[in-house]
């Protein structure tokens, strides 16, 4: 009976299931019109945050909190050092002997000697001392005729060449080929000259030696590869060119200051020259100018006037510095240059014929350009731009029916201006903006006191309704350019005033969006 019952119930159940129109339970889509309120971004931005990484390293803070931009560039030149080198020197000397017979002798016999003055032949330098760190004397002795059976040596002596370690003068006995290392020697010269003494030595023998007439012992020296630690003496009146250099001023780069009018309160630009060459140098700035794209360069006027006599050391290893100030700093910085270009010559011993100069192998002439721009002043027409990619290819434009931005900006910076989001196509051609003209003034600058410091932060707190047409453009756009046109805060009278940017100023941002969506999911 129970099985009958359950059969009936099962049959009834199957009947019911068979009476279900299954298509009723196959959803064709979902219709939903949600309104979403979402936070977009938040945070506090300081000046350092607003700058790209490479620029932020140039920002520094004075003790009073005032920010300044600091640039320095250091150019190191060995142009002066490179004027000097010790030339290679070849010397040939011969001992010519008459025809004689030398009897057997049990000890060496010092025979003939040759004394000569050797000149390195440098000009206009007149060296008095050369401290070597490389090089040597390569020698060759030959006997003519070679069939001669004379057993000999040559004693070489150069009293002006002294070993730095032992203090002993150079003395060597040579025969055949060989090299004498001079890297440890210090040469004492007289106007590039030194004395060389050669002595011919007959070696001991137990038999008579017959020397044919016109027999000679020939000695050939080559002083080569001589490198110095320093040279002393009078190094002549000479001029050398320093390579052209460019100092990039990144903070003024790009379009930010393209149409800007800037007036900075206390900018400082200076050039410091560090001279390690022990001789009088005149630096002559052939070109020293500020440049920026789309504008003629302006000259950087220096004090002392060009050419500038540089201080120089009187002791080996010391460095003397000379500071050259820039006279037209304000004109220069207000110009908002993107780079400083300079090219200089250096002239040594100008008009001199004698003197005690020295140059080290490591001597440099360093030019250091310092640019220090306190963020204190006024500006208009400053434009900040950034471009982000957009891609809503897979999104139906009908999905957002309306939207509004909720924006809260607390701005401690004395910068006031308009913000706009420019939508562009793939070629960066504008196809629309996100905000209408009357909606763009969202950056409210802080008010400042007479010292240019913040009195109260500027605040924008409101909602911005976005037009449907503008929204639709978002879905067509490939890029969005976020652009802010800024000017420094005005005074109470509405005119420009110098404002300060302190390190602890920030821009607090809270942005959210309310969007009405129409979702038809199939």
């Amino acid at each position, binding site marked *: 009976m129970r099985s009958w019952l359950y059969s009936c119930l099962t049959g009834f159940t199957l009947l019911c299931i068979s009476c279900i129109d299954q298509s009723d339970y196959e959803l064709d889509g*979902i*219709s*939903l019109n949600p309104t979403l309120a979402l*936070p977009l971004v*938040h945070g506090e931005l300081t000046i350092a945050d607003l700058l790209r990484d490479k620029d932020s390293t140039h920002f520094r803070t004075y003790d009073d909190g005032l920010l300044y931009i600091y640039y320095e560039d250091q150019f190191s030149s060995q142009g002066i050092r490179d004027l000097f080198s010790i030339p290679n020197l070849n010397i040939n000397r011969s001992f010519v002997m008459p025809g004689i017979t030398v009897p057997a002798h049990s000890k060496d016999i010092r025979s003939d000697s040759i004394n000569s003055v050797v000149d390195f032949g440098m000009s206009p330098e007149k060296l008095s001392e050369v401290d070597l760190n490389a090089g040597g004397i390569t020698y060759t002795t030959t006997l003519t005729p070679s069939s001669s059976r004379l057993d000999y040596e040559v004693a070489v002596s150069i009293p002006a060449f002294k070993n730095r370690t032992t203090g002993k003068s150079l003395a060597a006995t040579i025969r055949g080929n060989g090299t004498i290392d001079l890297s440890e020697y210090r040469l004492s010269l007289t106007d590039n000259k030194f004395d060389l003494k050669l002595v011919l030595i007959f070696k001991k023998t137990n038999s008579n030696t017959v020397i044919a007439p016109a027999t000679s012992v020939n000695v050939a020296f080559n002083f080569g590869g001589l490198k110095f630690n320093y040279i002393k003496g009078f190094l002549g009146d000479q001029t050398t060119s320093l390579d052209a250099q460019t100092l990039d001023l990144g903070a003024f780069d790009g379009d930010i200051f393209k149409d800007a009018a800037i007036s900075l309160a206390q900018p400082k630009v200076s050039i410091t020259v560090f001279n390690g060459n022990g001789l009088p140098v005149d630096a002559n700035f052939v070109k020293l100018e500020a440049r920026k794209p789309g504008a003629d360069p302006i000259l950087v006027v220096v004090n002392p006037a060009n050419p500038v006599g540089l201080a120089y050391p009187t002791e080996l290893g010391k460095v003397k510095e000379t500071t050259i100030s820039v006279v037209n700093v304000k004109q220069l910085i207000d110009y908002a240059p993107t780079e400083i270009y300079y090219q200089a010559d250096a002239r040594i011993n100008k008009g001199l014929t004698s003197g005690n100069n020295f140059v080290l192998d490591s001597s440099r002439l360093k030019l250091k350009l310092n640019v220090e721009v306190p963020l204190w002043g006024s500006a208009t027409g400053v434009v900040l731009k950034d471009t982000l990619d957009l891609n809503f290819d897979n999104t139906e434009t009908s999905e957002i029916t309306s939207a509004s931005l909720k924006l809260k900006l607390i701005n401690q910076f004395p910068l006031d201006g308009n913000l706009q989001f420019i939508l562009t196509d793939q070629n960066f051609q504008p196809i629309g903006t996100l905000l209408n003209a009357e909606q763009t003034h969202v950056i409210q600058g802080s008010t400042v006191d007479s010292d240019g410091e913040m009195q109260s932060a500027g605040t924008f707190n409101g909602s911005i309704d976005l037009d449907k047409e503008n929204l639709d453009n978002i879905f067509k756009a490939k890029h969005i350019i976020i652009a802010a046109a800024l000017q420094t805060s005005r005074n109470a009278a509405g005119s420009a005033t110098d404002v300060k940017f302190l390190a602890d100023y920030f821009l607090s941002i809270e942005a959210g969006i309310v969007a009405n969506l129409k979702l038809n999911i199939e």
Partner: protein
Amino acid sequence: MRVRAILTILFVAGCSTAFAQVEGTQYFMNSLPQYVSNNPAFFPRYKFALGLPGSMVGVSYYNNGFTYNDATRRENGKRIATLDRLIGALPAKTYITGTAQVDLFRFGLRITPKAYLSINSTVKNYNRGMIPKDAVALLRGNMEYVGKTAHVSPGGEMMVYWENSIGLAVSPTDELSFGARVKLVRGFWNATTGSSDLSIAVAENYNTTFAADLAVKTSGLQTEDDFKLSNFSSNNGVAFDLGATYTLFDKLTLAASLVDIGAIKWKANTYQYTLDKATANYTFSGVDINRFLDGDEGYFEALSDSIGENFKPREDAGKAYSTMLPTKMFASAQYEVLKNFNVGTVFFAESFAGRFSSGMTLAANKHFGRFLSTSVSYSISNRSFNNLGAGLSLNLAPIQIYVVGDNLLRLPISLAANKNVNEFLNSTQVFNLRFGVNFVWGWMQESGKKAEDKSYNAKKKGVKTGSDTKKHPSPEHINVRKKKR
């Protein structure tokens, strides 16, 4: 007048809080031995009943929130999910409940004219999920929660247990009967939401804070062992049913009962899953502009990992815990209009896991001789007002076959009207069905203790009792005679 007043009170009470798991049609079917289930003081029509496994199989579905029609609509021949409409239909908390019950054994015996003994063994399954309206409403966007907090804490209860009971109904007087049943319960599986506080707060600046405090306990779910009763020997509980009836006057009987007053202590294989608000919280304030400008490529991934870690539930081996059984309360009135035809109403309430819910049923019950008992009903339940129920028992003693449900009638109506049952399914929030086969003997001419009293009184006065109504006076006749005396 008194009857009308009582019925009005019950109806109003039922309408105002009609959310409960009513199985009201069966409540009045005194031809069934299962009649005693909802009130241990009830006396079934049969003196003796025996149920073997499958003597009762019951399933139910209750949804106090929505129907399929609320969630979808036909539009240009397409079936579209319309969440706006769905959200509009939802109460603050939508409870979706599914239950199942299978009787393993049933024994019923009228041991004296005034006492009925029942023994029952049954396996019950109760599942309930709760979805707060806010959780669904968030699909419509969070704008309406700006400056507010959306509470999206879901809840869930699940238990499967085996219940063995013995009950006794006694009738000390003609007007009064009372009964009690004691139940020994063994739990098999359980999952219960101890606490749940998930919130989404949207600030005026749209910053959105997610926070979660959650404690879910389970027993018996984390095991791969085969089913053995011994695995669950430590999950024990006790429960009681209490009930009473009172015959206010000759044709009106009032009844009240409390069913499943008890709890199970879960000890076997318990686990606890928790989220602590101290760590499980996160405020989304938009993109950190500094990190964005820094070009921090790992920013979003790190953010996602961090949130995932914060909201990862902690799993611990749990301690023993107790859960109450879904306790039910019934209050009913039954009026005998004619012999073997009565109407009744039952107000029903359930209290379980923090939810108190109620409902009511109006029913008309008719015995066609002793061979066929029927019932039709109208129930208000789970904010649903379209529940036409029916019950049918074929009393082919010793075999009795029955089927009963609170929303059965609309099914054939839908089928007849539309040639499919979709209209029924799409508009259904309540559906329950019980069916089975009992072995029964000893049909009583009249219901309950009254029948017994009267039959015994009749015997004493020489009036024959039996099933043949033609040979014996109807209750109305007996009442007339009483009045004459």
